[in-house]
């Protein structure tokens, strides 16, 4: 290494720029003008993106070895040394590009979207966004689990801050807090895993951990990977810690696009891919991951079927797609998962930004039942949104098709039931996306006149990112095109191969015929779902309140209520009991009781002080008698009295 790797050594610049942006915007939010804030906010990300590109080109060269840039010792104690170090390799570089690239576009979009905010809040927004990018970059760049954890918690914090951005609204604050707390539950698992690794190996640096991984017993590696996965559950919104993500839509829409679709929620996938060495050693965990991923994908998809809030649909869709990615991880298709992260970043960011554009135009109306027919008012938004819908539905040759099929193929290899459920879920995905599309853009407008009067296409700062993302959504899939279509296929897999260890028990690849067959089935299912949704909802939008199963789905399987009933309420109840009963009457009761006991004893003993000489002398005489008994006949009393001698 070292040969011409100039950019890789400057990798610290990548997170540094957003940090600078954060500081400038954060401290100077009252001094800077809005445009200046926008320029700084986006500019630093662009700078990071440029550096990332430079790094990418270096990493792409053959024979590239991972570069570790160590800045300073973060925690250095005799038992271990955790440096503040960054690791540049294929995986982190890929994520750098996604984060800074998509991040930049969303920043640009935000300059326009958030333009109505007061300058200081505008500055606050951009500083949060910059801080988020900084944290996310730390997460993917860290050369050890602790640095990753810093980013891991940092993105959680930024997510909290941005969800609660409009802090006057207490519902948003609740959503923010919920997000943070649920993330924390996951973080706890992550942290415990880190402790375990640290205790066993005395290091958390990836390269050392993976090279020493064989010292773990089977039980340990399973436990560690499970704990890490708990972290991923929280961050990437998997069952049972997924309910925060739909609520997180309280934040500004670009935030949803960046954090809750494109980047932060994929941190869990990044982490597992990063730890693929460990996961490959723990097949039990892998199966668990696959099952959780698949269940989440299915559950979220069913919920998405009946949601009417445009962002909620997209949120559940995100949860569902993340489930897909975990399915991929669980069946060993690490590259597939990363591939899907990438394509998902493109089209889901696009969908959210498109939705943002719609919401912007609709003056913050988010319910699709009051939209419709926007096609003619917002052409660019409409086209890009349609492309994204096709991409997510897995229609060839859009990006989603390739990435999703890679996962499904791997699932098929692993277990056919996984595949069947996966395909059904894919069908549902196509259905709800086009239900959403149809109700938003097709048919006739159902909103108020005032809203109709204001309908317009968004400004270019918003549409240009849409267009760029649309292009990426369309062509992005070709980096991972399967072998059946091209000879020089799976560029992504080749690129990532140095960081991913193949499972030793990996089955043979499917025959091209089977693979074609699988693709055909999923495409057919998707197309049928699209046609049904399109025809049904463009004519007769679903406005009535749902009933029966529909109501069950619309109410999200009542999971929030369930959590409330079995976790939140009992916990508060216990806390109340502790506060009002145990603390007051119990512990403090004992303490005060001692005091009261002393007073009571004082009051009683006082009565012996009767003032009567006769009584006093009587007590004295009795005491003398007792004392003599004690001294001369006292041996029989020994057991009682020995109590006082030590």
């Amino acid at each position, binding site marked *: 290494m070292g040969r011409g790797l100039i950019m890789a050594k400057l990798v610290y610049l990548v997170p540094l720029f957003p940090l600078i942006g954060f500081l400038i915007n954060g401290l100077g939010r009252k001094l800077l003008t809005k445009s200046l804030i926008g320029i700084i906010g986006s500019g630093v990300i662009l700078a990071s993106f440029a550096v990332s590109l430079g790094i990418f080109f270096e990493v792409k060269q053959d024979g590239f070895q991972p570069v570790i840039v160590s800045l*300073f*010792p*973060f*925690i*250095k*104690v*005799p*038992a*271990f040394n955790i440096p503040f170090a960054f690791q540049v390799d294929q995986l982190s570089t890929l994520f750098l590009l996604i984060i800074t690239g998509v991040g930049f576009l969303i920043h640009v979009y935000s300059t326009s979207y958030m333009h109505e905010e007061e300058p*200081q809040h505008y500055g606050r927004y951009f500083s949060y966004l910059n801080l988020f990018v900084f944290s996310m970059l730390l997460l993917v760049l860290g050369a050890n689990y*602790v640095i990753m*954890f*810093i980013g891991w*918690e*940092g993105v959680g*914090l930024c997510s*909290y801050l941005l969800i*609660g951005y409009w*802090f*006057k*609204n*207490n519902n948003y*604050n*609740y959503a*923010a*807090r919920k997000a*943070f*707390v649920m993330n*924390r*539950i996951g*973080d*706890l698992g992550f*942290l*415990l895993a880190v*402790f*375990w690794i*640290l*205790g066993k190996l005395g290091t958390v640096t990836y390269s050392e951990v993976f090279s020493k991984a064989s010292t773990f017993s089977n039980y340990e590696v399973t436990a560690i990977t499970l704990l890490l996965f708990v972290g991923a559950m929280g961050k990437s919104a998997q069952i049972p810690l997924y309910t925060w993500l739909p609520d997180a839509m309280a934040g500004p829409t670009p935030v949803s696009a960046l954090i809750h679709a494109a980047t932060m929620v994929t941190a869990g996938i990044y982490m597992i891919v990063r730890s693929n060495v460990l996961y490959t050693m723990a097949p039990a965990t892998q199966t668990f991951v696959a099952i959780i991923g698949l269940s989440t994908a299915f559950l979220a998809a069913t919920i998405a079927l009946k949601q009417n809030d445009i962002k909620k649909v997209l949120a559940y869709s995100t949860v569902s797609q993340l489930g897909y990615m975990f399915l991929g991880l669980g069946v060993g298709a690490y590259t597939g998962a990363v591939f899907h992260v990438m394509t998902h970043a493109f089209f889901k960011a696009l969908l959210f930004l498109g939705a943002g554009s719609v919401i912007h135009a609709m003056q913050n109306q988010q319910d699709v039942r009051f939209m419709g027919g926007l096609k003619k008012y917002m052409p660019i938004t409409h086209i890009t949104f349609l492309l994204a819908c096709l991409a997510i539905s897995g229609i060839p040759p859009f990006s989603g098709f390739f990435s999703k099929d890679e996962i499904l193929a791997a699932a098929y290899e692993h277990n056919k039931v996984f595949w069947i459920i996966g395909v059904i879920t894919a069908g549902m995905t196509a259905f709800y996306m086009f239900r959403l599309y149809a109700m938003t853009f097709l048919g006739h407008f159902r909103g108020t006149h005032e809203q109709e009067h204001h309908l317009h296409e968004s400004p270019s700062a918003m549409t240009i990112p849409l267009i760029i993302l649309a292009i990426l959504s369309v062509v992005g899939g070709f980096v991972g095109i399967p072998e059946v279509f091209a000879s020089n296929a799976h560029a992504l897999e080749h690129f990532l191969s140095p960081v991913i260890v193949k499972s030793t028990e990996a089955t043979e690849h499917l025959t091209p015929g089977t693979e074609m067959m699988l693709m055909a089935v999923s495409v057919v299912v998707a197309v049928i779902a699209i046609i049904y949704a399109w025809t049904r909802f463009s004519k007769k939008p679903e406005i009535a309140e749902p009933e029966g199963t529909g109501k069950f789905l619309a109410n999200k399987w009542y999971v929030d209520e369930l959590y409330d009933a079995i976790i939140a309420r009992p*916990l*508060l109840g*216990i*806390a*109340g009991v*502790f*506060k009002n009963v*145990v*603390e007051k009457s119990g*512990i*403090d009761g004992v*303490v*005060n009781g001692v*005091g009261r006991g002393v007073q009571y004893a004082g009051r009683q003993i006082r009565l012996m002080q009767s003032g009567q000489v006769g009584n006093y002398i009587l007590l004295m005489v009795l005491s003398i008698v007792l004392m003599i008994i004690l001294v001369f006949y006292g041996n029989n009393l020994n057991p009682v009295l020995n109590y006082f001698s*030590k």
Partner: protein
Amino acid sequence: MITVLLIIVPVLAGFVSFFIKDEKSAKGWALLSAVATLVISLISIFQNTNSLTFDASWLPMMGSRFTVSLDGMGKMLTLLTAVSFPIIFASTYNNHYKSPNAFYGFMLLTQAGLTGVFCSMDLLLFYFFWELALIPAYFLCSKWGGERRIPVTFKFFIYTFIGSLLMLVGILFVYYKTPDHSFAITSLHNLSLTAGEENFAFWLFFIAFAIKMPVFPFHTWQPDTYEQSPTAVTMVLSGVMVKMGVFAVIRWLLPMFPNASVRMSDAVIILAVIGMLYASLIAIRQDDIKRLIAYSSIAHIGLMAASMFTGDATGMQGVIFQMFAHGVNIIGLWIVVDVIEQQMGTRKFSELGGLAQKAPALAILFVIMALANIALPLTNSFIGEFLMFNSVFHYNKILGAVAAISIILAAVYTLWMVQKIFFGEVRDAEDTRLKVPANTRLMLVILVAVVLIFGVYPQPMISLTSDTVTKIIAQLK
């Protein structure tokens, strides 16, 4: 000699302060002396332990000498004390106290006591300072506190006094077990006791320290006292004084009774872990900022208590680091509480809300402090809590995991607090801005800077105190 100065300056300044009738001058004098002490303390950081040792004859008949010295941990804690007081004085500069001369006099005496505790190398001397720190604090709470101050602080006093008296018995007990009948730390660190004696003495000392820290179930004095004390005193109590307990365990208890410490570690750690969860849960249901922070502090101290007894060098390092971190953080929180209480006239969550609109800068600073309170990475408490949880987890995985639940609960109540105070709609109709005086703001900024600097680059503090860790762990082995 520098070490002696650290004690003498506040003592003398404190006595002088009693005679300064004018409020302004008293304040200025206190601040001046506190800053002077800070300067001395900063100088002492760069001296080596030998040159900081001062030894003089005191009570030859009793085997006690006036021996003070500073090792890494001592330097750190005297620094914490020296930093806290100027910050406290400066941040509450605008508050008015009746008879300010006595107020500042007692404050400075408390400072002297605290400093003395941290640098005594003679057990009897240590006990002296231990009490010297308590008495003025009692007067401060009782005289300048809230409505229920008299019974509450009295409970606090008696509670801690019982603890220290038991410790006194323990001190005498070990004194007669030293071969040369001496209170010197070197003699006491080489006791040879039977298992029974060691256990007995262990508990005598531990109860005193446990009350001071406080460890569940000896904690009930604390929330009341914090609530009723004037905030400046609460800062001293929670920022520095509770560290006395932790410090004393590390300085005295563990090295004197290494075997008993190992034997009792299960019991202590279980108590501490129960306390962490218990206090966290209670914190969730509080309606008073001070009580919430008080319970939060109990939870944090519980972690320190658990970690100290794991016998793990890393955990010990974490505890020592966290003493500083916790002190800085909680003082920061109290400063904000003080501002709110002074200006809004209430500390009830149910009566607060939306202050972020009235005082955005304060909100930001408070949020950072709150995040430090929940040990977010890149704040100083993360370092400490990381090391401490690590050690507890290695001590026993189940206990570690259970203890770690408290970090979730910490997030719940801390964010709840932030939300209730700063977010949401403004509660009162008046659209007045919350005035945050420049001095208060400056102090908060300093504290935030400390939080972040040591959160990102904790190494100086770790290196400073590593000698203590090495010594203690060697003693435990």
